[in-house]
């Protein structure tokens, strides 16, 4: 690897000046997994975007994709097309595709 600082290889979140909502729309369009802190979770209508909230774990750790703060008790959202758990939330009738 080159001498580039490692943080440049880690996603920094939305760009400066980009509204949170626009950035979330981008993530949804790419079907990326989404990590949200407790402050931002209620602003994200995951069902509308065909996401489900992963409940296998109570919390995950990571940088909030909304406000970019590190959250110790964040919620984790997965696009329905990646459903791999037979008992997962299938609120939109997605087909379970085992991996």
């Amino acid at each position, binding site marked *: *690897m*080159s001498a580039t600082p490692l943080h*440049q*290889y*880690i*996603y920094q979140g939305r760009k400066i000046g980009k509204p949170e909502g626009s950035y979330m729309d981008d993530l949804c369009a*790419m*079907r*990326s*997994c989404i*990590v949200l802190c407790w402050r931002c979770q209620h602003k994200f209508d995951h069902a509308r975007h065909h996401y489900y909230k992963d409940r*296998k*774990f*109570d*919390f*995950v*750790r*990571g*940088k909030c994709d909304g406000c970019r703060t590190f959250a*110790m*008790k964040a919620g*984790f959202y*997965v*696009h329905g097309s*990646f459903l*791999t*758990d037979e008992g997962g939330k299938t609120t939109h009738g997605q087909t379970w595709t*085992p*991996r």
Partner: protein
Amino acid sequence: MELAYILGGGTPHMIKYIVDGGVTINAGAGVRFAGGTANNEGMLEVTTTAADGGCGAALDEAASTDAQTGTTVDNAGFVTCVVNPDAAWRAKLSGGAAEDTALDFCSAAGQTADATGAAVVGATDEFMIWGFDGANAGHVRRATAAATVALTFPNDIAAGDRFLESSANHYGDLASWPTLTTNVTQIAAQTAVAAANDNYMVVESELRDVSDSGRTNSFVIVVCSNHIFGKLGAAITS
């Protein structure tokens, strides 16, 4: 592969990492930081037999292109990873190099009767053998030689009984590192394994029989045994 649990307990720690230029990472594919391509500039998929510098598996899919793709679209893709070195991943057993291939029976014609419970026709040495139907359905043993289990099955093997087998297990001489399927999202469970894959090691197995579609519904839970954060201080050589 999908995240099953964290061995040490606690919470999954998720980070989005950049994907190497020209690389597409599929959801559920094993990923690694280095080792596959010299001087890579982002995450790579593991190969079917190597996961050095690994980081478990991808939670979503992403791709990067070297060339710019426009002012509004970032040409770099980012893949979500769980960075816990002791993250355990649930991987489906596939009977071939292609994903979702049904597992083959040890003997397609069924077994010959054996009152000792030790002779399994077609069983491969060092593979896990489990009963698909018959009196031994649901019981599992590890073959210690071709067509032989030294720790015998608890019931007599009747003519026509069928058994399944998988290379992925954690017993014996640790030579049973699994080989992954072509898209590195599942385990090619009936491919003979090399002694030094050193990629994913089995924690536990979900081996199912005829009552639960065992040929297409069996899994193992693995940890990335060559995790980049699990061997702190090791040099990245590429």
